[in-house]
């Protein structure tokens, strides 16, 4: 390792430094170098504690935490496709035709990753060159998140455009990494959702070839897509019996299937289990805030419990835990709401922020089935509210301490 370091420092580095032939590409060299090796920066002024784990290392941990979701999502694309084609049935053992499923999924997810990272990092490099700073590492995670929150059969150019929009309008206009107000990956998804609604809602969750016909009874709709049909009908009515059956223990959207993620949906978000493994990694290394995660879960549970207690239709009547397993709730909780830049910064604020994000997630999803992904809307909304929450938390603290000071005096 030492020899490699020496080789880079003596033979490669000088080309990129001031006066070298490749000076123009210094940002590229610098980012790759610090990516591979922890840089030896030290703090020069003031009393700061510098953690051994810097931002690049933090980002890498998040990527590692995302791997279970990525792998499961890749497999699930193939699984849902073969299920839809009737090549496997839902009763088959999960591992049957494993490599076919995984391979099919990989042909889909790899181009998405390439487009997302290519466009996003391209823009980052461009701005780093223009503004003459070193490349920010912020996009490493966003670039992984974007492919995981889109449906499998979305057009690549749309993902590219959405990524460009999110990086430029969501982040660079505010000054780059760490300055953004809303979550970059969710900005990309919101862009897709409003710009190309037919491509990201409805029955588009399958990756299929042209001319494929689906097996009988397989609709490819998401759980929430089915439940949206129950709105306006009485609880337990005859018209919705078939939909209710899908959510029973033997149905396609049983609690177990939704926990493991055996359902159509955006690539990475179907599996609550994979998200929880990611959550365990993030919490173990202390990167994500447990306050946000816990309060997000509680917020969602409270809203789902209220709906469940006073149901007006079968969507509301879904048991709370089952309600939370649906859609991107867990993915949003673990990877989106905990984004350290856009979440609230104060500890009390984090509880408030997380609670309302979870609360609104379920509320939007149930009350407005035109926006099936309430989690996205709720987190973006709370991102915008986070600075206000912090402001009032800090003001309350000042007030409390002033009172104490007055008593002491």
């Amino acid at each position: 390792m030492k020899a490699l370091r020496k080789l880079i420092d003596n033979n490669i580095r000088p080309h990129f430094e001031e006066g070298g032939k490749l000076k123009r590409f210094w940002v590229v060299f610098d980012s790759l170098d610090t990516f591979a090796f922890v840089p030896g920066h030290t703090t020069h002024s003031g009393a700061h504690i510098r953690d051994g784990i810097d931002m690049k290392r933090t980002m890498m941990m998040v990527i590692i935490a995302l791997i279970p979701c990525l792998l499961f999502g890749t497999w699930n694309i193939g699984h849902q496709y073969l299920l839809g084609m009737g090549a496997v049935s839902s009763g088959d053992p999960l591992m049957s035709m494993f490599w076919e499923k995984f391979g099919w999924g990989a042909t889909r997810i790899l181009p998405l990753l390439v487009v997302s990272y290519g466009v996003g990092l391209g823009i980052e490099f461009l701005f780093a060159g223009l503004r003459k700073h070193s490349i920010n590492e912020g996009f490493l995670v966003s670039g992984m998140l974007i492919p995981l929150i889109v449906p499998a059969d979305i057009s690549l150019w749309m993902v590219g455009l959405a990524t460009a929009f999110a990086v430029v309008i969501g982040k660079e206009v505010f000054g780059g990494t760490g300055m953004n107000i809303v979550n970059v990956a969710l900005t990309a998804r919101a862009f897709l959702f409003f710009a190309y609604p037919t491509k990201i809602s409805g029955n588009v969750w399958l990756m299929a070839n042209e001319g494929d016909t689906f097996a009988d009874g397989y609709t490819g709709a998401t759980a929430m897509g089915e439940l949206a049909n129950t709105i306006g009908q009485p609880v337990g009515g005859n018209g919705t019996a078939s939909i209710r059956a899908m959510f029973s223990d033997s149905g396609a959207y049983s609690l177990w299937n939704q926990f493991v993620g055996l359902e159509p949906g955006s690539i990475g978000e179907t599996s609550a289990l994979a998200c929880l493994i990611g959550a365990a990694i993030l919490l173990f290394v202390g990167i994500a805030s447990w306050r946000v995660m816990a309060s997000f879960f509680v917020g969602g549970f409270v809203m789902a419990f209220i709906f469940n207690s006073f149901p007006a239709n079968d969507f509301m009547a879904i048991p709370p835990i089952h309600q939370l397993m649906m859609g991107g709730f867990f993915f949003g909780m673990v990877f989106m709401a905990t984004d350290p830049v856009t979440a609230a910064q104060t500890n009390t604020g984090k509880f408030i922020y997380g609670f309302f994000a979870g609360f609104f997630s379920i509320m939007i999803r149930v009350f407005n089935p035109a926006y099936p992904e309430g989690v996205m809307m709720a987190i973006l909304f709370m991102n915008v509210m986070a600075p206000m929450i912090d402001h009032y938390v800090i003001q309350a603290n000042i007030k409390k301490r002033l009172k104490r000071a007055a008593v002491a005096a």
Partner: protein
Amino acid sequence: MSTETQALQEVKKESLFSKKNKKLVTDPLSDNNPITIQVLGICSALAITVQIQQALMMSLSVIFVLIGANVIVSMMRKIIPDRIRIIVQLIVVASLVIIVNEFLKAYAPDISERLSVFVGLIITNCIIMGRLEAFALGNKPGPAMMDAIGNGMGYAWILLVVAVVREIFGSGYINLEGLGLTKIQIFPQAFYEMGYMNNNLMILPPMALVVVGIIIWIQRSRNKALIEDH
């Protein structure tokens, strides 16, 4: 308010096209643009920029009302009692807006229908009230007219740029039928067959805000003096 009025030095027999008067026209086009710098008249910029023909008609209406109101109020500036000046200004503007509205209804009924209330809302357009208060009340009709032309054009070009971007990417064509012209298809059918889709977000008002924002961004990075420091 009258303290904010920028009274130009009343030089006798100043030519209408003197340097100072020319600046009244060119300033609002870029460095003192009513939309991107003063951030006035934003509501109409977001609402009626879905189509170029609407934006064009709206711009012409605003320019007409602005010139008319600025000149009339400037001529009456010595006889308007200070305490009721807002009401007098409103009456002048409202009369002009009614004229525009009736004219549009008669000669461009399609566009008039699409613009709906926004023609009527020109009365409350901050640019017009702002120019009357800040300029017409303290200056002669000549400079007031130049000022109105400048600000009207400054408003118009932003509207048109936003409308061009939104109509091309949002609808895929430029529809000028309301003006008696044809509809021009921008993206050929082959594009759509290859998978191109119109961007629905462009039709929605938030994207107008983003486009205006991008114009502001470009403008301020070209002229650093415009950046306020906080």
